[in-house]
């Protein structure tokens, strides 16, 4: 699906965005989702909820109604499309000029946000290990440590 959306971007004369889509979505986000599926790999029978079908039906109704609304809006509006203009020769240069002239502040803010997300993800996902509690037994062979010493964790509530 991500790759097909990248193909649509190429159809829309957006080659840089298409490359970014392939690199980021197919390369990074897909791998993240696969890691999530792998790490949370438990076939879990969810408890059946009472009146769950009401939620499903109402959500389907709302989604279909929203789609109908958007479709009528799209089809009824007269879009001032001007097909005589030629697309710019290189969208990469234009995007670069935008980034370093009038979108400079959002660009820098995006870099800071990426750094914050990186640090936050590491802090959230790391295991809390116990440091400095090795047993010092002289003369005996220590048992092979197969995993990091992890602080015992009791599930919350």
């Amino acid at each position, binding site marked *: 699906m991500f790759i097909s*959306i990248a193909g*649509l*971007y190429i*159809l*829309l*004369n*957006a080659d*840089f*965005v298409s490359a*970014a*889509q392939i690199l*980021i*979505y197919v390369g*990074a*986000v897909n791998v993240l*989702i696969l*890691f*999530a*599926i792998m*790490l*949370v790999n*438990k076939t*879990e029978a*969810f*408890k059946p*909820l009472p009146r769950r079908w009401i939620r499903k039906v109402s*959500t*389907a109704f*709302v*989604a*279909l109604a929203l*789609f109908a609304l*958007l*479709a009528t809006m*799209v*089809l009824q509006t007269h*879009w001032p*499309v*001007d097909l005589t*203009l*030629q*697309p*710019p020769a290189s*969208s990469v240069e234009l*995007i670069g000029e*935008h*980034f370093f002239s009038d979108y400079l502040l*959002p660009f820098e803010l*995006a870099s800071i*946000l*990426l750094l914050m*997300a990186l640090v*936050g*993800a*590491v802090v*959230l*996902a790391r295991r809390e290990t116990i440091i400095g509690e090795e047993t010092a037994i002289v003369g005996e062979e220590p048992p092979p440590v197969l995993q990091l010493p992890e602080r015992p*964790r009791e*599930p*919350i509530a």
Partner: protein
Amino acid sequence: MKLEFFLLLAAALFCIGIYGLITSRNAVRVLMSVELLLNAVNLNLVAFSNFLDGQQINGQVFTVFVITIAAAEAAVGLAIILSIYRNRDTVDMEQFNLLKW
């Protein structure tokens, strides 16, 4: 190639994403639905940028920003899901009541 086709496709993607976001009970599926929503928005932005703003492609710049934010969101969301899964031993959205009073 018309603008309406892209807008209709983006609207359909958005509605599927909303349906999956609300009805799915697995937390990973919720994350995937959010990605679907962001992709629909990106498609809209690029379509408008091509058809209505063909010379100054501001929409593509916005799309790059949205992709950046989406990557950060995916990373943080995955970390949150992992942390909740380790503490609660479930990925059921109905049992996440940490922020309820």
